[in-house]
Structure formats: structure tokens, C-alpha cells
């Protein structure tokens, strides 16, 4: 079926291809893009928004595919979390671990990384591993395609670098070159919006750390000072709890949390320090068990 719009009093546009979708969005800027609906439909159901038109992205087969690009994986913005967990855990372990903590099975069958990015909630589970691995976001409009480094994507709470008329079509995530971790703090194991979360990627080729902090600032953050921690690469056994604790302190210092219904700023900093130290111990141990270095 091709495009068009419902011949009705309101618009519900069902494009079959991305170029058609961006053209429709340019022609109907009032149309709200919807894929899994796990954020948008909550707002609609609670009358927080009442879209006069919607642009359905679920008919775009090209958004529901991921492709192996050699050193990275290009994930279509419409690939649901359930598939990221099931299909990409080996090459993108940090992102797959985060995807596994999203909502519930029902939510993971519908929710997408593209939606997580478009909503740009500081609490979104997808953001920390994207920051830790240096992912890039691909956005398309009638003017063409542009690539946005993840570090430049988040502008504020629920504000991103995405411009009117642009659709997120894919996220390109570098493949893991070492152990990765994702830790999330919440009141139970499912259906939790993170109190805080932390992602860590250890790159064994460049001997660098990548970090991502969720739900502890106006935007998802990195901890550059923590990434510069001097690790005992020539004598791995010298790694100790004091070093892990210092890493935790630096991560906590990078956070900019507030008090809200899910937790206090002080608790978030404390929990982040614990999570970061734990994550570093785990990746260091895994790296040296695996390689014998």
C-alpha cells in the first residue's frame, strides 16, 4: 500500500518508505511520528497530548533491520528492544543488557531505540550504552541525511538535536572491543524507570574506557574525568578496590542529579559511585580472565 493518508477528517499517514515518510512530514508538520507508541500513547491516553495527525513508522521495513557494518552495527530506528536483546548481545553486549531492562516483555516487543532517542528522556535506558560506545545517530529529512555524534544529540530534558521535519532512521554502534557493563537502579526488576543507570565499555585495543550516566542529570552524561583514570595495564593484578572506588567517585562527581519522586540527588550520586566501581571491577576482571593479559 502506498502512502496516503486517510481520506478522513484527521490524518493518519502510513508511508511505506523513508523518502515518502520525510516528504509527508514536510507536508504535514503537525503529524506526530509514532513507532512502538510506548511513550507517545501514554501521553495520548492521559490527554497530555491530542495529536491531530500521526505518522506511522511501523510500515517502514527498512527501519526494522540491522546490518553488520564491519566494525559497527547499524541498527534501524524501528528495531524493537526485544530484538536488540535477542540478536545483538554478542557484538553489542552493553546495549543488549540495557535493552533487556526496558519495561516488560510487552514494552520490549514494541519500544524502539529510535523512540528512546526521539523522546530524549534523561532516564531512557538506551542512552548510557550509546554514550559509552560513541554511537552516531542518523537523521533524515527532505534536505538529506545527517549524522549526529551521540555526545551532541542530547540538549536538555526531552530535548534533542533532532530538527523539525527530521526522522531518526538508524543508530550506528561500534562493536564491542572488550567487556561492557550496564547497571540500573530501580525498585524492582521490571517496569522501572531508572533511578540512575551506568554503562561502561572497556576498549582493549585502545585501552580506553567509555562511560554513560543515565537519569542523573538534565541529559544523559559521560564522565570524562573517570574515563582518564590510570589503569595498571602492564601489571593488571595491581588493580584494587581503591582504584575502583576512585573511579566511582569520579563518575559520581560527573553526575548532575536532582531530587525527584524516584530518588534524591544524594542517593543517585551514592548509587552511581557503587555501580561504577562494580562495573569497572567486572570489566577489568573479565578482560584479564579472557586475554590473560
Amino acid at each position, binding site marked *: 500500500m502506498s502512502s496516503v493518508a486517510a481520506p478522513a477528517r484527521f490524518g493518519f499517514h*502510513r508511508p511505506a518508505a523513508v523518502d515518502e515518510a520525510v516528504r509527508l512530514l514536510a507536508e504535514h508538520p503537525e503529524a506526530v511520528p509514532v513507532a512502538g507508541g510506548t511513550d507517545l*500513547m501514554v501521553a495520548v491516553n*492521559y490527554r497530555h497530548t491530542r495529536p491531530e495527525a500521526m505518522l*506511522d513508522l511501523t510500515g517502514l521495513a527498512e527501519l526494522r533491520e540491522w546490518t553488520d557494518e564491519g566494525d559497527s552495527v547499524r541498527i534501524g530506528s524501528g528495531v524493537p528492544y526485544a530484538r536488540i536483546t535477542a540478536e545483538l548481545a554478542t557484538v553489542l553486549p552493553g546495549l543488549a543488557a540495557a535493552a533487556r531492562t526496558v*519495561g516488560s516483555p*510487552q*514494552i520490549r*516487543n*514494541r519500544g524502539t531505540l529510535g523512540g528512546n532517542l526521539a523522546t530524549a528522556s534523561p532516564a531512557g535506558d538506551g542512552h548510557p550504552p550509546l554514550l559509552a560506545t560513541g554511537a552516531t545517530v542518523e537523521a533524515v529529512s527532505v534536505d538529506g541525511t545527517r549524522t549526529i555524534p551521540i555526545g551532541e544529540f542530547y540538549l536538555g530534558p526531552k530535548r534533542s538535536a533532532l530538527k523539525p521535519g527530521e526522522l531518526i532512521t538508524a543508530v550506528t554502534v561500534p562493536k564491542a572491543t572488550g567487556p561492557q557493563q550496564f547497571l540500573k537502579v530501580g525498585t524492582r526488576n*521490571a517496569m522501572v524507570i531508572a533511578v540512575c543507570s551506568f554503562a561502561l565499555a572497556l576498549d582493549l585495543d585502545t585501552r580506553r574506557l567509555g562511560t554513560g550516566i543515565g537519569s542523573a542529570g538534565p541529559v544523559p552524561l559521560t564522565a570524562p574525568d573517570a574515563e582518564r583514570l590510570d589503569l595498571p595495564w602492564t601489571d593488571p593484578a595491581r588493580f584494587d578496590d581503591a582504584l575502583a572506588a576512585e573511579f566511582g567517585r569520579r563518575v559520581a562527581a560527573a553526575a548532575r542529579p536532582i531530587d525527584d519522586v524516584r530518588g534524591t540527588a544524594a542517593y543517585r550520586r551514592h548509587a552511581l559511585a557503587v555501580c561504577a566501581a562494580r562495573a569497572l571491577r567486572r570489566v577489568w576482571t573479565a578482560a584479564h580472565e579472557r586475554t590473560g593479559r
Partner: protein
Amino acid sequence: MRVTMHVDGAETAAEIDRPGESLLSTLRDRLGLTGSKNACEQGECGSCTVLLDGAPVCACLVATAQCEGREVKTVVGAVPRPVRDAFVQCGAVQCGFCTPGLLVSVADLLDREPDPTDPEIREALAGNLCRCTGYEKIIDAVHTAAAALAGEPR
């Protein structure tokens, strides 16, 4: 706007009047299919769980207009009889409000994993809240249903 779906095996058309109308509203209020329950309307409780093209989803978070030509199975069409019987037999139903959603989630689990472990059951049902049973009897019912399904020719 007219949307045609396959609901519990039958081609079904609904006339909707706003783009954000949820599949749950359409099923209950326009089609009179009240098996899927409306509780939280934010994807938290799982009472409205249906199979959309075979995958469990919260019907409250699906826009009906996204369902043109797609297959929807509610508790009526998704659940094998032995699953329902196991819930009755094991006392896994108290007030019953969460039951249709749980039955759909259990049917999906047993379709993918005929003999699930307790942790697999808990994970599969993590999106379905029950305020009455404490879940233990629901987990008993899943094991009972698995055994019943294994014993009958598929």
C-alpha cells in the same frame, strides 16, 4: 477512518474518529470485545495484553490505525483451553481482572518455551501485575498448563 484487522480469526472493521485512539479502546468500546481489560492505560499493568502479529503487546499503547491488515488475538483467540483450565484448577484467579492479560502472556510463553523454569516464567510475566494472588499460584498454573499441553497432541 476505517481500520480493518483480523481479530480472533475474524476480519473485523472499526470506524475510529481520532488518530490516537488505542487498540484497547477500539476493541472494548467500538467492537464490544471486553476480554482485554482496561486498568492503567500506560503499559504498566499488562491487563490489556493481546498478541499483535503473534507478539504480546499492551493494547493500550498501540494506535488502532497502526493495525490495518494486522492480526490481533485477545484472550478469546490466543489461549489454548488447557491454559485456562490450569488457572482455574490451581486457584490462579482471584478477582480475575488481570487474568485475561496473564492468560495471553502465558499462552505466548508456552508457545515459545514448552517447559519453562520459574525464572523464565517470572521474566515472561513481569509485565502483568496481579494484586491478589501473590503470583505463586499463577506460576503453579503455568507448570500445570505446560504439563497438560505436553500431554496432548499438538
